[in-house]
C-alpha cells in the first residue's frame, strides 16, 4: 500500500462517515418489517389451515346429507384432497424447519471448531511451526 492508497483509504472513510443514530432508526425499522413479514406469513398459514378445516367439516356434513352416490364420491374425493393438502403443508413446514435446524447445528459446531482453531493460533501458523 503506497501513499496514494493510504490517503485514498482515509479520504473514503471520512467521506462515508456513518451516522449511528440514523443507523439505529433503520435497524428498528428493519426489525419492524421483519416482524410484519413473519406475522403476514403466519396469518396466511393459519388462515389457510382454518379454511381447509372448515372445508373438510362442510364436505363431511354434506356427504351425510346427499343421497346420490355420484355426489358422495365427489365429496369424498374433495375431503381426501383437503386432508392431504393440510397434511402436505404441515409436512413441508416440518421439512424446512428441520433442514434449517440441522444447518444451524452444523454451523454452531463449525463455529466452535473455528474458535478453537483461532485460540490455538490458526492452522497455517501451526503448519509453519511444524515445518520448522
Amino acid at each position: 500500500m503506497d501513499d496514494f492508497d493510504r490517503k485514498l483509504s482515509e479520504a473514503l472513510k471520512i467521506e462515508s462517515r456513518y451516522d449511528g443514530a440514523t443507523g439505529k432508526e433503520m435497524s428498528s425499522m428493519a426489525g419492524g418489517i421483519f416482524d410484519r413479514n413473519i406475522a403476514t406469513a403466519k396469518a396466511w398459514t393459519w388462515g389457510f389451515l382454518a379454511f381447509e378445516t372448515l372445508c373438510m367439516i362442510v364436505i363431511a356434513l354434506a356427504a351425510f346429507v346427499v343421497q346420490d352416490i355420484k355426489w358422495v364420491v365427489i365429496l369424498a374425493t374433495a375431503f381426501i384432497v383437503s386432508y392431504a393438502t393440510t397434511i402436505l403443508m404441515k409436512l413441508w413446514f416440518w421439512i424446512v424447519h428441520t433442514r434449517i435446524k440441522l444447518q444451524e447445528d452444523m454451523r454452531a459446531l463449525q463455529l466452535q471448531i473455528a474458535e478453537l482453531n483461532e485460540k490455538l493460533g490458526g492452522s497455517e501458523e501451526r503448519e509453519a511451526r511444524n515445518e520448522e
Partner: protein
Amino acid sequence: MKSSERIIDELLVLRSQDGDRQAFEELVARWQERLWRHARLLTGDQDAAWDALQETWLAIVKGLKRLNDPAAFPKWAYKIVNDQCVDWIRRQQRQRKFEDQPPEDHRPDDLQDSLRLAMERLQVEQRALISMHYAEGYGMVEIAEILGIPEGTVKSRLFAAREQLRKLMESS
C-alpha cells in the same frame, strides 16, 4: 477453514430464516454500516444511501426465506445494494437530461472535494471496487467471492479503477 465471523453471519441468516427477530436485528447491526458505506460511495449522496439501504432491507426481509445457501448472504446483500444504487444513479441521470443540466463543473477545494468529483466520474463497477477495497477493507479474495468473479479479474479491474481515480483527481 471458514473464519468464525463468517460462520456467525451464516448462523444469524439461518436463525432469521427460522423467524428469530433478535437474530435478524443482530444481522442488520453487523451489516448495516458496511452496506451503507458502500451505498454512500456509489451514490455520493447520504440521503440516497439511506433510501437504498431501506429498500435493501425490505428486499432482504422478503427474499431471506428463499436464500438456500446462507454463505451467499454477503454476495446477495451487496448485489441488492448495487442494484438499488444503479437505479438511483440512472434516475438522477435521466432527471439531469430532462432538465437539460450539465453536470456541475467547479474547481475542487481540497482532497475530499476532488475525491468526490473523481468518484462521480468513475463507472459504477469501478466505484464499487474502490469502495469495497479502500473504504470497507476487503481483500482481493473476499471481493472476488462477493462479486462472483475471479481474483485475477478483481486485481486488474481494481488497478484500472485506482489509476483512473488517480488521473481524475490529478486533473481536477
